[in-house]
């Protein structure tokens, strides 16, 4: 054991300044927990909401400032990479999180008393007393902090911790829907069990890679690829199980099964947060692992990801056609979009090619994130007596009841479909162009065909909204609160602006991608 009686311990250096955006979020989350403990119930919401939004805005401002300063380094002893892609992803996640929080702020999405059995006297009492779980805000903050840490983690342990910090609050948030609580609790359980299962895979992969390289540092693993010989079994099984864990988080087929269930059952604002933020964070992490740590192994993993990408696109597009629930349909569409994004992940090559692919992915993620948050925001506004009008048939004739809302929803759907002059088109174009340049022509063929199929069912919903006769007792359109209205407006504006004049954001993504990932 002589090796373990090591040299004196030196304190690690931590670049607090560079990590400040994340630290603000986590700090605010802890303050939020304290607020829960020490302030009277009636005051909590009015304290939590400003803390949440302000910390996010502050963190966003700091991220922008660091971007302007051109910070590109691996902070905290190389454990956390604060590089171009990280900063872009942080900014995107924070923006989308701010927007989602405005949506979450609406009172009636969340359960009054989570512990009360649905339909019991306790629940009625909690409802009549106007109870509310203000713990939601710190939970969201923790989740967002995890989302920021996940793609920035430069070693697998930090990545695992971030994964859990991101996921655990989301598991809980999923189960807190005010209406259809059984559905919501079921979604939470499914998400939790499958999520824990997948993180076990992630962890086992980490263990094997650690066994292979003797370190969990991404850079060290990359170096070990060329120096360590005779340990291929560890490497391949490790990379595969790690990949399973990551692919699960982005919802790629065949690990997509949780997505529709969870998206449908969760409170819609949380779905919006997951569909935008989690996807971005998980993609960032996936890219970092595969490009940085396993970059020299690409001959082995590209064929697998090819298969996964094709399967994901096909499954997403085909199953979306058969859906009758609007949130499920959006979930399957999210799966299809994951597949489109994967086409660019595969398209690696020279450095400039990688930078192009990366900037395409970053732009796509941001564009898709805004459209998706906007779409779910619209979903929250179309109400039946028992909650949101989930079934597609209830959306028939919405265009006659509320042309403006239906028009905006149609805009988001067109963006998903990738019709020109919406953000989706340029996103898809950037990603596919990168894939073609990277030699993945066959993938792009599948991509364009499935995106045409996908476009078909988006258009079908548009037709349903505008050209079908409204159901006699159709859903009501909730008068949007300030927050919801702001979310819808913002997202619609982003979708149009990114569709007509995407250059500034493309530039930003391009600059962010130029440096690639810090190694």
């Amino acid at each position, binding site marked *: 054991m002589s090796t*373990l009686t090591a040299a004196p311990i030196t304190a690690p250096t931590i670049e607090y300044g560079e990590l400040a955006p994340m630290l603000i979020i986590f700090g605010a989350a802890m303050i939020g927990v304290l607020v829960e403990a020490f302030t009277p119930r009636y005051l909590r919401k009015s304290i939590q909401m400003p803390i949440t939004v302000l910390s996010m805005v502050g963190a966003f401002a700091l991220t922008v400032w660091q971007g302007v300063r051109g910070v590109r380094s691996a902070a905290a002893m190389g454990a956390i990479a604060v590089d171009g892609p990280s900063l872009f992803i942080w900014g995107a996640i924070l923006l989308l999180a701010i927007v989602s929080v405005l949506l979450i702020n609406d009172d009636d999405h969340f359960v009054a008393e989570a512990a009360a059995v649905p339909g019991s006297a306790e629940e009625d009492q909690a409802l009549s007393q106007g109870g509310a779980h203000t713990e939601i805000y710190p939970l969201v903050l923790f989740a967002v902090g995890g989302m920021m840490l996940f793609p920035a983690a430069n070693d697998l342990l930090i990545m695992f911790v971030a994964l859990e910090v991101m996921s655990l609050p989301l598991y809980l948030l999923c189960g807190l829907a005010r209406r259809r609580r059984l*559905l919501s609790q079921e*979604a939470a359980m499914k998400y939790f*069990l499958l999520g824990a299962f997948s993180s*076990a895979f992630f962890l*086992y992969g*980490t263990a094997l890679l*650690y*066994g292979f390289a*003797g370190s969990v540092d991404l850079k060290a693993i990359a170096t070990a690829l060329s120096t360590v010989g005779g340990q291929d079994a560890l490497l391949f099984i490790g990379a595969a199980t790690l990949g399973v864990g990551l692919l699960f988080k982005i919802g790629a087929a065949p690990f997509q099964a949780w997505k529709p269930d969870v998206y449908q059952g969760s409170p819609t604002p949380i779905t919006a947060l997951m569909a935008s933020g989690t996807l971005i964070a998980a993609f960032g992490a996936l890219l970092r692992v595969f490009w940085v740590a396993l970059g020299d192994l690409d001959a082995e993993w590209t064929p697998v990801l090819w298969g996964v990408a094709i399967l994901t696109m096909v499954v997403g597009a085909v199953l979306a056609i058969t859906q009758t629930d609007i949130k499920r349909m959006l979930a399957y569409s999210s799966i299809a979009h994951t597949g489109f994004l994967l086409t660019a992940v595969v398209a690696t090559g020279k450095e400039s090619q990688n930078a192009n692919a990366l900037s395409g992915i970053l732009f796509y993620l941001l564009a898709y994130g805004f459209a998706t948050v906007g779409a779910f925001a619209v979903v929250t506004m179309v109400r039946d007596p028992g909650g949101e009008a989930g079934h597609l048939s209830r959306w028939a004739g919405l265009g006659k009841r509320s042309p403006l809302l239906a028009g905006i929803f149609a805009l988001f759907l067109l963006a998903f479909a990738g019709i020109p002059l919406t953000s989706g088109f340029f996103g898809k174009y950037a990603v596919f162009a990168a894939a073609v340049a990277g030699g993945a022509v066959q993938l792009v063929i599948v991509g364009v065909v499935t995106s045409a199929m996908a476009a078909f069912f988006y258009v079908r919903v548009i037709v349903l909204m505008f050209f079908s006769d409204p159901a006699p007792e159709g859903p009501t359109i909730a008068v949007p609160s300030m927050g919801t209205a702001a979310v819808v407006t913002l997202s619609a504006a982003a979708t149009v602006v990114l569709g007509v004049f995407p250059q500034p954001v493309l530039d930003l993504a391009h600059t962010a991608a130029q440096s690639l990932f810090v190694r």
Partner: protein
Amino acid sequence: MTTHYLVLSALLFAIGGVGVLVRRNAIVVFMCVELMLNACNLAFVTFARQHGNLEGQIIAFFVMIVAAAEVVVGLAIIVTIFRTRRSASVDDANLLKY
């Protein structure tokens, strides 16, 4: 020999994985996940020994803490659903379908 520990860890992981897939009680499924996490821990510690560095052992501590947090969240979710349904079988959770 450290190989034996690695084989044991792989076995535990596999048992856990199969358990998640075949067991029907949410609590048991959850315990199987915990088993998988602990299999990872065993692997980490073994590899730490093999490589002669401390990283793996420290990671094992991190994993324990994360697993504890997971237990808190997981049990909370399972208990709520049990109170509602009087059953913790994942087969009864069948409202969300295609």
